[in-house]
């Protein structure tokens, strides 16, 4: 009884969706969430529906599977114009509207509405228990076997060695900023982190929250967004979200759609001014030659909201690259920088650099095993005792991953 009351209520809840955005779908998806019935979850842990929209690269599939499994039960996946093969099991595919009228009209707005309806229907089925939650796609095994290994059965050895609870421990290295040699944290962030451009996969090494080194593993997926006013407004909305102004971001998104609910742009830009958004961006942050710093890029976007046409930027200098812009920044600053570029510039900045020390990691990582790094018999002796993990920054450190090259 109590359970059914709960499910009834739950069915009314806004549908929490975690999205993985594929090629050319970003702007459309952001408009999808203008509807109050839907909430875009920041993390799969908060979502019930996994929406995969647009075409994905082959190597993204493994990440999608991982994201799928990170969601709590009950969960369901919806593929929207997505081609992911069998990677997501027998998830429901949505290729447009089911109504004939809509197929003929093939108008984006109509199809968006159809997706909304489908999402809502899915959630109601899930909440009422008609649809069962999807099982895991990956095998239920830890990245390294650990149970029963080691003196306490926790998988570790000595002070820092082994793989306690399935993962090795962080090792010490020098720091870029203040020379205290503390531990490094290396991980691949992305490709579907909500505050990252979709598809961008960075291998970052952090110390505390300062980024020590960055390597682009996969560039962002190309988006249709041009340089027109709606695209600029959407970009402004993303920056506003990162600045902690989701309400203003939402208004900018509504303005980008236009129509009856549209917000006067002057009002929006005044609100942004009074929010102190410009002051919240440090001067000189993420400066790129010819492109100003993050603050000027932001000011440009705001002036678009004021009615000026979007600025045109000159070509990039050859040397500008994310792997040289981001290191040394704190996480929050780095997120501001990442979101301040337009799509074209960003894809140039995030291009995979061809070079002697590069290793086409992007292709290695996706070959289907979660524990690519710690597999192999050699790893165990490496993690014992003083462990030989990454005491060098930058290229030397990357060399470890691309040893075969």
């Amino acid at each position, binding site marked *: 009884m109590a359970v059914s009351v709960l499910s009834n209520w739950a069915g009314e809840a806004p549908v929490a969706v975690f999205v993985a955005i594929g090629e050319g779908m970003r702007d459309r998806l952001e408009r999808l969430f203008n509807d109050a019935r839907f909430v875009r979850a920041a993390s799969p842990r908060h979502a019930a529906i996994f929406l995969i929209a647009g075409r994905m690269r082959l190597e993204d599939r493994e990440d999608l599977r991982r994201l799928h499994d990170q969601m709590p039960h009950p969960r369901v996946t919806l593929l929207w114009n997505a081609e992911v093969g069998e990677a997501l099991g027998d998830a429901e595919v949505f290729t447009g509207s089911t109504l004939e009228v809509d197929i003929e009209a093939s108008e984006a707005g109509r199809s968006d509405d159809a997706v909304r309806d489908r999402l809502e229907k899915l959630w109601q089925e899930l909440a009422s228990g008609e649809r069962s939650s999807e099982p895991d796609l990956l095998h239920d095994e830890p990245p390294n076997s650990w149970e029963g290994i080691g003196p306490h059965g926790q998988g570790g050895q000595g002070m820092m060695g082994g793989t306690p609870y399935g993962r090795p*421990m962080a090792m010490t290295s020098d720091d870029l900023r203040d020379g*205290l*040699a503390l531990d490094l944290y290396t991980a691949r962030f992305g490709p579907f982190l909500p505050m990252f451009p979709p598809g961008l996969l960075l291998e970052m090494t952090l110390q505390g929250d300062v980024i020590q080194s960055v390597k682009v593993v996969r560039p962002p997926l190309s988006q249709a967004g041009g340089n027109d006013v709606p695209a600029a407004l959407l970009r402004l909305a993303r920056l506003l979200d990162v600045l902690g102004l989701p309400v203003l971001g939402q208004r900018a998104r509504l303005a980008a759609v236009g129509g009856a609910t549209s917000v006067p742009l002057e009002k929006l830009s005044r609100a942004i001014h009074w929010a102190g958004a410009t002051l919240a961006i440090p001067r000189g942050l993420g400066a790129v030659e010819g492109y100003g710093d993050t603050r000027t890029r932001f000011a440009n976007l705001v002036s678009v909201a004021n009615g000026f046409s979007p600025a045109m930027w000159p070509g990039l200098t050859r040397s500008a690259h994310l792997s040289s812009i981001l290191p040394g920044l704190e996480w929050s600053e780095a997120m501001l920088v990442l979101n301040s570029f337009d799509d074209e510039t960003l894809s140039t900045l995030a291009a995979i650099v061809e070079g002697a020390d590069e290793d086409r990691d992007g292709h290695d990582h996706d070959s289907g095993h979660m524990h690519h790094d710690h597999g192999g018999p050699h790893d165990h002796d*490496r993690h014992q005792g003083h*462990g*030989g*993990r990454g*005491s060098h920054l930058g290229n030397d450190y990357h060399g*470890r991953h691309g040893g075969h090259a």
Partner: protein
Amino acid sequence: MGLTDLLFLALSAVAILSGWRVFATDSMVRASFLLLLSFVAVGLIIVMLAAPYIGVATVFMMAVEMMVMALFMVMFMMNPAGLNPMMMVHQHRFSIVAGVLAFAGLTAAILFTSFPKIPVDPSTPVVHDLGIELLGPSMLIFETAGVTLLATMIGSVILSSRSGRFGMADQGSRPPGLEPDGEPAGRQPEAGNGHHHHH
């Protein structure tokens, strides 16, 4: 046995047990917060002892101090979360004996001393009295404390920051080995044999 006694017993048990667990737990964050728990229990006992200001202020001060303690514990201890259980002690038996002896000695002293019995009157405005004392008779102590705290602030800034008058504080440093003249602990040897390149 009234509620007061029971509460006192419970709080003492919490204070002592969590104080002991501080040195028996693997996770540094847990250790810091256990110490905080011990302080909170003592603070509440102090409130029960008719010193509400000192008791609550103990909780207040120790909450932030133990927070900072946790930050530094995690920063400087190897294996801060205790993922691998560990025991980093020296002269262990001697320390146990010293601790027990201190406790026994103090207890004996307490039991065999007769203290005067002049309990504090519950109606005394203790906070007010303390304020008068601070501004009047003990004014010098108060201002001296200010100077001491200033010295502490300056000292801790000088010691902890990297840049100094004679250049960077960490120049020419090399970590010690776990055994004398051994390889630096927890790190990979500089310009090592590169064994990590072959896998």
